[in-house]
């Protein structure tokens, strides 16, 4: 992967296929159609997340609207035995990697769990809300995998804002020194809550990699085929022992930061409209049409699948029970201290008395 100053693109804004010297589309027709299905389903899950929050079923939701191509394209380029370290907005990554495990994410935002899935099951770490921290976990995992002679890579997802945290720069350097099999995947969605890129950094993200001694590449994050191709190449490079790559996917957060945020306080509707026109799913559908792959039947199937997933999301969340009280203490330690267990017995005593009193 050469150092490049140009953004990698394989799809024009109208869906025309572009030629690229390094990156090619080598997906089967079936895969190309399935990619469309995943994009549409992820968008629908996100819509449900917003709706459920509005109905009081979730405490908060962090929409991924507009970032579907960056998430689906990159996650699809990985193998099941690679290990993924998401941030908190990667619902598309979770869906591609772990299917309906995405319901646990809704549980997290409902306040019913703490992400709570087994990270080894889908080789997918829990969401990491403290910004940028997970980048270092990816490096550690990758170094361990390298020591074990495993041909796998670790992928860290983070945002443009996260690149300001020390942990992320430390991760770049540590990975470079160890030539660790890591893919750093930055979704540059132009905003960190209300802070625009210009206040976050004075040079492009991907160029930092060169300073640390490894390649960086900027890709059109709303071009699902380019994201797929670039991520696949970086993952292969990592598994082949050539070390880390930093991918900067240029995209846009079309929704609010979270459902408690009001973006009209800090960004213009002109900017929003400009990016709406570049949203990724319409562009990909136009490509499928040009390629003769889009049919009414495909659209029907995809929409039916989105409806099915949306219904499952709604039904599951609306009937999600509150966690049992014992969840307070059950998973804190492998071997809980006696002081904690005494506290727990006291709480049980209190709760029992309270109930007895009515």
């Amino acid at each position, binding site marked *: 992967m050469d150092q490049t100053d140009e953004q990698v693109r394989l799809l024009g804004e109208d869906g025309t296929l572009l030629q690229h010297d390094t990156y090619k589309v080598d997906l089967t027709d079936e895969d190309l159609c399935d990619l469309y299905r995943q994009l549409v389903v992820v968008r629908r899950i996100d819509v449900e997340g917003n709706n459920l929050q509005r109905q009081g079923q979730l405490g908060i939701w962090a929409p991924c609207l507009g970032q579907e191509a960056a998430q689906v394209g990159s996650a699809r380029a990985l193998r099941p035995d690679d290990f993924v370290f998401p941030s908190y907005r990667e619902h598309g990554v979770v869906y591609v990697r772990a299917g309906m495990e995405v319901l646990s994410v809704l549980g997290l935002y409902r306040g019913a769990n703490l992400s709570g899935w087994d990270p080894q099951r889908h080789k997918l770490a829990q969401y990491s809300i403290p910004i940028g921290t997970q980048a270092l976990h990816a490096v550690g995992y990758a170094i361990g995998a390298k020591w074990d002679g495993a041909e796998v890579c670790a992928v860290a997802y983070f945002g443009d804002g996260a690149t300001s945290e020390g942990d992320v720069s430390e991760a770049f350097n540590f990975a470079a020194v160890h030539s660790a099999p890591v893919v750093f995947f930055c979704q540059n969605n132009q905003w960190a809550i209300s802070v625009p890129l210009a206040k976050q950094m004075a040079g492009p993200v991907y160029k930092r990699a060169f300073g640390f001694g490894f390649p960086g590449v900027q890709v059109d994050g709303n071009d699902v085929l380019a994201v797929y191709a670039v991520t696949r190449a970086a993952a292969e490079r990592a598994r082949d022992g050539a070390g880390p790559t930093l991918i900067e996917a240029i995209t846009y957060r079309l929704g609010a930061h979270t459902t408690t945020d009001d973006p009209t306080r800090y960004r213009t509707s002109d900017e929003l409209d400009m990016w709406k026109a570049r949203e990724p799913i319409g562009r990909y559908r136009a490509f499928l049409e040009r390629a003769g792959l889009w049919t009414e039947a495909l659209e029907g199937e995809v929409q039916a699948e989105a409806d099915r997933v949306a219904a499952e999301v709604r039904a599951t969340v609306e009937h999600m029970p509150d966690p049992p009280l014992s969840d307070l203490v059950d998973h*804190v330690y492998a071997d809980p201290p006696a002081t904690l267990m005494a506290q727990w017995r006291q709480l049980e005593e209190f709760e029992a008395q309270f109930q007895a009193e009515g």
Partner: protein
Amino acid sequence: MAQITMARALNTALRDAMEADDRVVLLGEDVGTLGGVFRITDGLLKDFGEQRVMDTPLAESAIMGVSIGLALRGYRPVPEMQFDGFSYPALDQIISHLAKYRNRSAGTQPMPVVCRIPYGGAIGAVEHHSESPEAIYGHTAGLKVVTPSSAADAYSLLRQSIESDDPVIFLEPKRRYWAKQEVDLPVSTEPIGKARVLREGSDLTLVAYGPMVKVAMDAAEAAQEEGVGSLEVIDLRSLVPLDDATLVASAAKTGRMVVVHEAPQFLGMGAEVAARVSEAAFFHLEAPVLRCTGLDIPYPPARLEEAHLPGVDRVLWTVQRSLDF
């Protein structure tokens, strides 16, 4: 008199402090254009400009380290940590430098930095947004740790903190941000280091601070109505320095004490108060000082936070345990 929220009182305190001293500067994530995620800095960018109200890159260690540098240059920075759970990247700067600067410079270099941190739970938030890290800061010599429970105290304590030449960790109880109080600003309340007896009582003393003061007051009210007893309520207001004298006098008077806080119990403020009161008022005590606190667990998911946090019922239950002792 006007009805104002704690959020409004804090906003006004920042504005008044900036008007009084042009070396006072604010910095943090989203404090400018957005006015902070809790709107505590609302409108200040517009009136004071980008130099005095800085939207920083997303880096807490940098926010604190840069604040220390600004203080060395003679500014009085008021950095904001967006949430309790995101203040930890700044701990190295706070513990290794902010708290130690005066001592390492043989008393020559003041560190007038006020680190504002919204803290505590009961707002139904997702993980890392509801923590109570006061013991970490209280355990770090060189820092003052202040936490208001009302709009009036929020205003006065923040003004005093900004005027302090010692670094202050200013903990804002986020569940109380929108609670209103009748008060005219500016207002001047007791100095940092003085606790306040909010309610006189004769049978037992409840000790609380920040988010738990309202709970303690409600419990005292309920205890009165239900004939449980007459409870005195102390609002600590500042955890460092701690007002030993007020605590000991009250314990000597009532003979019983329950300390209430959201933070985990182990090595918490309750342990410190209990040890001090036992030492100084041992022969006056009718019962050991008891604690009604959060469990010694990572903050639970929102749907379990009510059981984790002390509420009026659990406070009263602990009060009864003391009375029955």
